[in-house]
């Protein structure tokens, strides 16, 4: 089992420390978020003039999202095309790994929605495995309803959020 303990040293927030005798400084997480890290290392293209297809906006690989019907985790139509394109890339670039991030619309239990998003991510993962992508290049995780792309309450908003995104490691 791929298990590890992570011990994180705590950051100091003096404002809080001054406040309450029992209270330790609140740790601050070091996450860069989804929009950080512009200087990503791109393996496999060093010394070449070719554009990394993952960074080419005209490449089919720029399509990263698989959309689902209401209450469904079945990969369909356009979604299958996205799965096909990334599966082909992963098979010929075996050093690359992806995280498939499942999402749901915004109503209901946070934890049950995490399960629903996981089901969508696993569905995409299995579709890629069927196409021959090794399991070691794939991880299915869920954001549930915590990171919606659309925050409105229309059916179009909900449809945007019923989604799994393919994120390459290092991006």
């Amino acid at each position: 089992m791929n298990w590890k303990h992570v011990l994180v040293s705590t950051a100091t927030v003096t404002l809080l420390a001054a406040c309450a005798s029992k209270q330790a400084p609140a740790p601050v997480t070091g996450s860069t978020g989804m929009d950080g890290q512009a200087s990503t290392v791109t393996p496999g293209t060093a010394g070449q003039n070719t554009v990394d297809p993952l960074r080419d906006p005209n490449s089919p690989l720029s399509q990263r999202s698989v959309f689902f019907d209401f209450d469904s985790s079945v990969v369909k139509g356009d979604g299958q095309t996205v799965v096909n394109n990334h599966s082909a890339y992963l098979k010929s670039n075996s050093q690359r790994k992806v995280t498939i991030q499942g999402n749901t619309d915004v109503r209901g239990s946070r934890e049950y929605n995490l399960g629903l998003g996981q089901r969508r991510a696993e569905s995409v993962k299995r579709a890629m495995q069927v196409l021959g992508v090794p399991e070691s290049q794939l991880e299915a995780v869920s954001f549930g309803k915590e990171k919606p792309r659309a925050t409105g309450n229309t059916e179009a908003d909900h449809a945007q959020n019923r989604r799994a995104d393919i994120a390459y490691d290092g991006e």
Partner: protein
Amino acid sequence: MKPFRLLLTLAWALAALCMLPAARAEMTIEIVGGGTNRHPIAVAAFQDEASRVGGNLTPIVRSDLDMTGFFRQISPSAVPMAPADPASPPLPAWQAAGAQSLALGRVEDAGNGQVRISFRLFDTAQRKQLTGGTFTVPVAQTRDVAHTIADMIYQALTGHRGLFNTRIAYVLKSGREYLLQVSDVDGARPQTILRSREPIISPSWSPDGRRLAYVSFESRKPVVWVQDLATGQRRAVANFKGSNSAPAWSPDGTRLAVVLTTSGNSQVYVIDAAGGQARRVTRSDAIDTEPTWTPDGNTLLFVSDRSGTPQIYSAPAGGGEARRLTWEGSYNVSPKVSPDGRSFTYVRREGGRFRVIVQDFGSSDSRTISDAAYNERPSFAPNGRMVLYASDEGGRSVLYAANPDGSSRVRLAVINGDVQDPAWGPFNQP
């Protein structure tokens, strides 16, 4: 029952000293419902509290009592005289004013920056003292004494242990930040335990009140962490491939039920509270999630959609046959068991509304205790007399505490942010 509304707005000058701007928590306590069987009590202003503790005593005692939904407060102006001697108040006059009980007290200077706070609780009809006490503390601890006095009044008049010295945990969404906070039950004195740009969900108290387990998305996936509240030290205790979520402490504090996805779907596992190997508890090809323990530690309740819709099940904590507990409705989620083990609360979707339900074990009888259209994540107070949950009001999330019989509700609105995923802490708090 006619709805009964009382609005008390209390500005916490003391709390404001100690808060981050984003975490401002001026409380509005609003009592909704109830009214017929409530106990009429007068809490007279503590003598000399204005000059000695900045008036930060009586309002806190009163709002604590209001929160329970058990009391109806008789205005102290009904008997327009400050009793010179708290030992012998004019009880007949208070009885005539409608107060069945009278609480009163005084604040004296004890020297060295300390105050001596004394109080007494009387039964106005029987003309006798029910309880009382004296506390000598630094001025800064006045709020703790106020909570203790409210606890003593509550226990003397209801027979149930008071919980105003317990704390609650919740996630405050503030701008683009998520703050995991712990505060007094009335939202005062919030302390930020963790701040992150990525979501934090599902805080769960250890039974000794010293640690919180929670799910943080800081590594771009859900991972279960345990954090010591006193030292701030934290450790990822479930960080397996896939998603890790829904931590729930065993009643003896040694283990955590968690949800892992290493099998390719969300399943319930048990791990040691310090981390380590996971032992699988549920075996289905469905989503099994939101585990929670019964007080004896023998049974786990959890949500599963193995029937096609999410429903609540119970199973032996050591693994074994699951039994379905909810049969009404097509969406029943987020269970928590009452401290006496006799009932459980959860959320049911009904006609587009998400209601907080309390249901007794051994019967399918259930009652709705919430009023708003959208509610999330109920949890019992440690004395079982209240249920805390999050409610959507006008697009933002606020906290409610409701009587589990559905007779009353109190809104605890924290200003300046959405309050999500509340969890009521245990009696045992350091």
